[in-house]
């Protein structure tokens, strides 16, 4: 048996519902395009994992909505959360500071001052954000050697690339290498991304300012997640130790 229906309860003026509907449709389109206009991946491919670009229709349509909803209102987002990713390494940072004379800053006990982030005694919310600071430096990228010869412009130098150079077992240091000298016989060469380097310099400047130091050396400790296969087989323990990478000294 059907109940007697009640009339729709909207009693707004027609012009207002039309205008409101137009705004809503624009808003929903902006939100939807924010989700679609994002790269996806990494997907498996013949050359390893690669990112797929956003669909062209979404990218082209998203122009104005990216500005209004992404930049101005900040409500358009891909919702491709970093925390959805699995197997990303964890990281913490150690920072050593030096004064104008090049001597290490000391703590109250007269020992060299070593700052650690996340700080153990910070409250959990601050520690969580400091964890994000550290994790942002664990964003290395593969460094591809050039396929052809790189020739410097007249009067110029060959561009350099930053790469991690092993200096001891599970210890790396940052080295700027001319592009043509990137080793071709060593697979899996990694280097920090440009964003990572920008952040490392910014962190160093901030810590120098806040501690009155002249220079700071940021040392990154990363560790991979123990894989589930350990439930069934033994793996060499070295796989689960810290990888220590130094960004070198950055002056204020």
């Amino acid at each position, binding site marked *: 048996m*059907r109940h007697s*229906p009640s*009339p*729709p*309860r909207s*009693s*707004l003026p027609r012009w*207002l519902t039309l205008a*409101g*509907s137009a705004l*809503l449709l624009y*808003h*929903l389109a902006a*939100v*939807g395009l924010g*989700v679609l206009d994002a790269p*996806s991946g990494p*997907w498996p491919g013949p050359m390893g994992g690669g990112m797929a670009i956003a669909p062209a229709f979404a990218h082209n349509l998203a122009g104005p909505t990216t500005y209004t909803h992404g*930049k*101005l*209102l*900040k*409500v358009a*987002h*891909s*919702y*491709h*959360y970093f*925390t*959805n990713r*699995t*197997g990303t390494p*964890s990281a*913490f940072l150690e920072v050593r500071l030096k004064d104008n004379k090049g001597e290490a800053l000391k703590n109250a006990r007269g020992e060299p001052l070593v700052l650690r982030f996340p700080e153990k005694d910070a*409250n*959990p*919310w*601050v520690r*969580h*954000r400091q964890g*994000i*600071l550290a994790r*942002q430096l664990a964003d290395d990228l593969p460094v591809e050697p050039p396929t052809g010869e790189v020739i410097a412009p007249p009067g110029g130098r060959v561009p350099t690339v930053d790469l991690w150079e092993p200096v001891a077992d599970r210890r790396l240091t940052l080295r700027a290498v001319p592009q043509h000298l990137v080793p071709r016989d060593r697979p899996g060469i990694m280097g920090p991304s*440009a964003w990572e380097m*920008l952040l490392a310099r*910014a*962190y160093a*400047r*901030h810590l120098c*300012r*806040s501690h009155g130091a002249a220079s700071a050396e940021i040392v990154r400790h990363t*560790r*991979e*997640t*123990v894989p*589930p296969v*350990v*439930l069934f087989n033994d*793996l060499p323990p070295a796989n*689960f130790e810290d990888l220590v990478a130094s960004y070198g000294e950055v002056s204020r």
Partner: protein
Amino acid sequence: MSASRTDNVPLPSRPVAAWNDFWFAAVDPVGLHRLRVLAGLVFLLWLLPFAGHVDTFFGLGGWFDQQAFREAASEAARFREEPPVPMWSLLYLCGTNATAVQAVYWASVVVLVLFTLGLWPRVTAALTYVVVASFTATPAVPYDADPLLILLAFTLMVGYLLLGQFARGVSLAERLLGPRDAFLLSRPAEGPRASAGANVAVRLLQVHFAVAVVASGLHKLQFGDWWSGLGYWSALHRPFETTVEEIKANRPMADTYLSLMSLAAYATLAWQIAFPAFAWRRGLWRVVLLGGAALAFVGCAFVLDLPLFGPLMVIGCLSYLTPAEWRRLDGLLAVMPGLRGLARVESPPPAKVAKATVVSGGHR
């Protein structure tokens, strides 16, 4: 079988009628008010712990300083891209002045308290959105929950900017500052007045939240570990906190352990991807909606180390409650010791809302 409110509308016009009914029906604004209180508490929970670290995290002399902004802009310009830094923030106006940053921070805390209480909500809701968008604009510490904070603040701002604007007999002060009955402890004499503005805001939150939940669920499918049911492995065995020996201790029950973990991962995926199919349904589906939110709350807070996500998931899921369901929750609140003062048990039941609308002119 119950009839829809649009059943008496000619068939060709039904989609339009359903659209208007979904978005523009005047409803009891109880849901908007309750969501405001919960959201305000979450905003405070998010901002207050930074009290001793304000300049460090948010100032232009902190972790991400002015020079970093300049470098990001020039790097982006080199590749003809947009700089990966937020376009605006109230804190940019403070420059490197740490005192100004502190002043803005504490003023923002006051705004959030006023907003939570429901004082001058039209103004404080707009300011709350500005506060949330500003304090999430620090490129050094982007967190996945930040977009949900902004989304919540934005939709509540829309709701309070619209609430009661089309009603008759509203004073100029109320039109500018917002309705007085939004105050947390107010006891409106004439009962709640139905509002289309409140409905628009809550619907916006519902739709946007559903998009976020589904998009995040689909994104998980881009990673093999989620397909293998190992999506929670990394979170449960954080590298600096877990040793190989601890994991080896689970060897005797490895199959059971992995089966339960993969079941949890697939349940999460199913809940997220099917979210729109049950979020708007009532009856037992509420158990799926709110049960999932409760599990998300517990999991994010105590297992996955994802602060803020749990409360935000709960608020997002509660936004699907109807005004009648909110009133029933009020009734439950009234019998809990110490919380009776917060429950508006003397408010008229939803059935009287329409009448109140006619009598008072209604908040549309």
